[in-house]
């Protein structure tokens, strides 16, 4: 009987040690996974998912506090890729919202702009330049089309146009 007990115990010990070693050696901590999730997200930084940008949403997905179906600009393609990466089931988009953001950019009607800085401060990628009481403008090559500046503008002088 003792032979059996010792054999089983030593196998368990060996397996345990192996697992511990593997855990320390393999790089796949949550941060690395979140990096890869973040790479699949469109980087619009629009916040339609309910998080303050793509990276926070990626962290939430990896932490298990958010589903993979909350990114409208990424659309179903992004959901499918996320599902593939994380070994989850793809599911339809759960958040209604704009899915065509990557095709549009914001443009400021410079005649109407009062230089209030609200849009500049809210832009998640610093794509708006301007100073107090001076006209603002959008660096269209850097604009992600997130539309966050639209509600921020007190004089409604920002429009979304199709990316050239």
């Amino acid at each position, binding site marked *: 009987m003792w032979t059996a007990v010792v054999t089983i115990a030593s196998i368990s010990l060996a397996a345990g040690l192996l697992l511990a070693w593997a855990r320390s050696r393999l790089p796949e901590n949550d941060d690395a996974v979140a990096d890869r999730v*973040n790479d699949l997200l*469109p*980087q*619009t*930084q629009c916040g339609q998912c309910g998080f303050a*940008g*793509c*990276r926070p949403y990626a962290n939430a997905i990896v932490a298990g506090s958010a589903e993979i179906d909350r990114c409208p600009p990424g659309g179903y393609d992004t959901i499918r890729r996320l599902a593939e990466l994380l070994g989850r089931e793809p599911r339809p988009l759960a958040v209604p919202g704009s899915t065509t953001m*990557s095709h549009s950019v914001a443009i400021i009607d410079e005649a109407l702009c009062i230089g209030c800085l609200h849009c500049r401060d809210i832009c*998640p*990628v*610093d*794509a708006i330049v301007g100073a107090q009481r001076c006209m603002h403008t959008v660096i269209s090559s*850097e604009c*992600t089309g997130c539309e966050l500046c639209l509600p921020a503008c007190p004089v409604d002088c920002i429009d979304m146009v199709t990316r050239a």
Partner: protein
Amino acid sequence: MSEGAPTYDLGKLHGGLRLPAEKQASTSRPILIAPVPAQLVLPLVQHVGQAAEPVVGIGERVLRGQLVADTHGSLGAPVHASSSGRVAAVEPWPVARRHGQTAPCIVIECDGLDQAIDTTEILVDYRELDPVSLRQKILQGGIVGLGGAVFPTAQKLMQAATLPLEYLILNGVECEPYISCDDMLMREYAADVVGGAQVLMHALELPKCLVVVESDKPAAIAALAHALGDIQDPRVTLKQVPTIYPSGGEDQLVQLVTNREVPSGGLPSDVGCVVQNVGTAAAVQNWIARGEPLISRVTTVTGDGVASPLNVLVRLGTTVAEIVALAGGYTERAQQLVIGGPMTGKSVTTDLVPVVKATNCVLVLSELPAVGDERPCIRCGECAEVCPVQLLPQQIYWHARADNERKLREFGLTDCIECGCCDLVCPSHIPLTADFRRAKARMRELADEKARARRARERFEHRNQRLQDERDKRDSELAARKDAARNAGPDAIAEILDRARHRGESDKDEDS
């Protein structure tokens, strides 16, 4: 010299097709010099790269050869007025392009005087210029590759100049059926072609030049041999290649005449060669020797839909309708208008499109393209057999339909030269080339999106970092002040109280 020109072994070129040439119709007459039209339409994009920026105002009078739109951005070519007149508008106009029906154009109402700008300041002997300034000068001539790719010539030279080079190859192959503009140009302007070759060799300090012509153009070969005999330049050699489509493709030509294979994703300059079309060389000579920028070109007007096919030397910006009229107009059988050749051309629905730098041929056909008789792929492998780049079109086709980017890359879609051979041999009439073009465009789009996403991520991270730094700084300043207050001794407190009292007194003084 032409007798001694070696003919190359076809074994060096994979696939390809022997196509009926259909060139006799348009080569039986000399090049007709087209009259100056009443109106010129000059698109701002007639080249690979960014659109040129207009430098003239509406109503301004311009002269022939005057710069009307300048290079904008890192890759591009300027546009010059093809005749004298007044700028009437800068507006969208129908053009023959793969993407989009219209493009912004400068419209010039010609005054018929055809007055040229003063060229005395432009003209210098190119041999007195160092290669770098000669390349800069070529850039100002608005010259682009006239073989069809319209890549800005000067920038091609500048890119190539950074690598060790051996050969300048002048491409006079013109392997696509119907097109004969290069053939006629070589026959009638052989001296310009050869002169241009010398300028280009100087611009790149190249030791050797091969002028390559397809074997079915004996008249052009004779004319070139004569012109070469006149200049007695031992660096320049005339070569013949067999008549097979698409031996005139840049990479294919390099392989045929030098037996060097251009690597996947690479350029001929990676194997020491620079390929220029013969028309481009003539345009370079015209600019350097006569100070005339690229404002005209030879264009073939042909097909069984025009009355008398011919080649015309036409001002850029003339509408296609006008040069079709020079060829006797449309016949009753005319059905389809193609800008470019039958293999790589683009079908258009209006003849109001202007002749641009890329327009080597206007083809009017009596048959409409067969639509809707596409059948499923039977995996016969004919397409792989004829592919000059040795791709597997049938495999790429599946992956293109499935939008599988990784597989498309793996199977070398980016190396496809869109020659159209696979379309022609496909027994199921699958429009493979069109599919590949779409898939390439999609791949470019995805790559753009990826690059944009990467930048957006970096900017987002930088911004967050900046906001965090600002918060940290504020917090630490606040903490420092709190600390200072907490550590202040009784003296400091007394001092503060004293100050407060004094302030109170001075306030009272002011009140009274």
